[in-house]
């Protein structure tokens, strides 16, 4: 803009000289010259300067706006960066805190924990597991399960967990020493339905086992002590009834028969307590032999032949279509299970009712079911069916006998064989009890 002004001034000087040449009048020329100088100054001061200033200002202000805008953006960025950093820090410390909290929990658990990834590499071990297994974490962390089996007491654990792919197990016993027993369970860790690892939990059951053993010992001793007087009562009653001690009248005999019957119930209860004690001692399955389960079913059914006839029960035994493979089981105990199940079915089915036994097998298991159309089990009682001393109120009403141990014993025996026992029941319609035994 300044350059235009120079042209203007040059133009004014040129004009003055032109006029000087034309007029040749010095005074007039001087006057014109002065006038133009004056005009130029006026123009410069009044017009061009402010104009330039305006333009400059205008430009300035435009740039300023941009800068202002940029500044605003930068300021905004700075703010968000600041808050971002703040949030990031916060999130980080939250994660850190969460992690610490979880680790503190894991560390202070009384159960031992071991975390394996999908490839069977050990990722984490808590102090309790370290104590149980007598190992140093730095020796085993990051190693595959088969590489750590020789550390501390790991080898028994590895045997239970399985090499390579870790098995899913629930409360399997791991004896560590003479008087130290753990229970091992594994839980698959999943993220969005994808398995990402396995958590092994070691639970110390030493104390429970010891208390159990003491309880069982107590029950065994008292059961034997109870049997002796019961035998004396039994023998006396029988001799009285047999007339060994002189003839009795019918009324006396009738009463003594009832007494004999009560005494038999007491003997049965003692027997069940003994069975129970032995089951809970865990030394129940010491005699696994290959057995034909169909024969066992038949011999239990034969055992109940009289009861079936007396109650006029329509009893059906659905034998398997093909011959069942023999299975390694504790014969007497499985006999006891089937006996308990058939006994219940007959006991809690009215005269002329129906009881059906189904036996089938595939390559991996044998399945036994018994279905009756008896009194069934009330809905609110269903969860208690397998508990010790359980008897449903409708069962007590129908049949005063029974000690509520049969199904508890059955469940224990089946589970000791690593099988499963279950049932369905509708009150008034009947019940179906089933169990399976793996080969």
């Amino acid at each position, binding site marked *: 803009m300044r350059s235009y002004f120079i042209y203007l001034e040059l133009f004014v000087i040129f004009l003055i000289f032109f006029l000087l040449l034309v007029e040749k009048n010095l005074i007039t020329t001087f006057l014109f010259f002065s006038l133009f100088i004056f005009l130029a100054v006026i123009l410069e001061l009044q017009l061009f300067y402010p104009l330039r200033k305006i333009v400059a200002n205008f430009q300035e202000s435009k740039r300023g706006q941009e800068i202002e805008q940029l500044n605003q953006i930068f300021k905004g960025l700075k703010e968000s960066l600041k808050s971002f950093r703040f949030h990031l820090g916060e999130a980080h410390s939250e994660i850190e805190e969460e992690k610490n909290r979880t680790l503190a929990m894991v560390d202070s658990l009384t159960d031992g924990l071991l975390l394996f990834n999908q490839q069977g590499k050990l990722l984490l071990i808590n102090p309790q597991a370290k104590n149980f297994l007598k190992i140093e974490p730095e020796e085993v962390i990051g190693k595959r399960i088969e590489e750590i089996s020789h550390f501390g007491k790991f080898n028994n654990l590895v045997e239970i967990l399985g090499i390579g792919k870790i098995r899913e197990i629930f409360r399997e016993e791991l004896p560590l020493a003479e008087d130290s027993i753990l229970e091992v369970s594994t839980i698959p860790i999943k993220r969005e339905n994808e398995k990402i690892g396995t958590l092994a939990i070691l639970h110390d059951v030493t104390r429970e086992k010891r208390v159990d053993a003491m309880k069982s010992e107590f029950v065994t001793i008292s059961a*034997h002590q109870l*049997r002796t007087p019961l035998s*004396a009562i039994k023998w006396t009653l029988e001799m009285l009834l047999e007339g060994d001690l002189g003839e009795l009248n019918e009324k006396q005999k009738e009463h003594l028969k009832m007494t004999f019957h009560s005494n038999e119930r007491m003997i049965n209860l003692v*027997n069940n307590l*003994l069975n129970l004690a032995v089951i809970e001692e865990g030394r129940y399955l010491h005699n696994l032999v290959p057995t034909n389960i169909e024969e066992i079913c038949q011999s239990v059914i034969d055992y109940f032949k009289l009861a079936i006839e007396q109650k006029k029960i329509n009893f059906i035994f659905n034998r398997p279509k093909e011959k069942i493979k023999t299975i390694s089981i504790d014969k007497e105990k499985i006999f006891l299970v089937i006996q308990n199940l058939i006994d219940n079915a007959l006991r809690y089915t009215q005269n002329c009712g129906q009881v059906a036994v189904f036996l089938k097998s595939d390559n991996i298991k044998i399945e036994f079911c018994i279905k009756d159309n008896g009194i069934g089990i009330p809905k609110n009682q269903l969860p208690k069916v397998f508990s010790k001393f359980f008897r449903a109120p409708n069962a007590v009403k129908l049949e005063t006998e029974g000690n509520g141990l049969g199904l508890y014993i059955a469940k224990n025996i089946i589970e000791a064989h690593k099988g499963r026992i279950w049932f369905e029941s509708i009150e008034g319609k009947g019940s179906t009890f089933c169990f399976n035994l793996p080969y």
Partner: protein
Amino acid sequence: MKKIFIIEDDKFLRDLMSEKLSSQGFEVFGAINGEEGIKKIQEIKPDLLLLDLILPGIDGFEVLSQIKKIPEISKLPVIILSNLGQKEDIERGLNLGAIDYLIKAHFTPKEIIEKVKSILK
């Protein structure tokens, strides 16, 4: 007349059994513990022994194994009559040479005498 010997520490049970056996025509002798029992058996030379297991002093298992070691009485048929009824007790008794194992509470005197008779036949 066949002679039956009973080793049983519970007097009432021993008396009941003696009475029942006597009524069935047996001559009955008894002892309340193992040591006394082994001594008397050697004198009396019974035809059969009913042996309890839980006894004061040496127990029934010990009595049984001692009897088997004494040549004059080693052939004596022994029925264990006890309230011990665990599988291992039964197996142990039979392995030591008992001819049968009866749990007292599971048998009546009548049934026990049937067993005795069938063995002595």
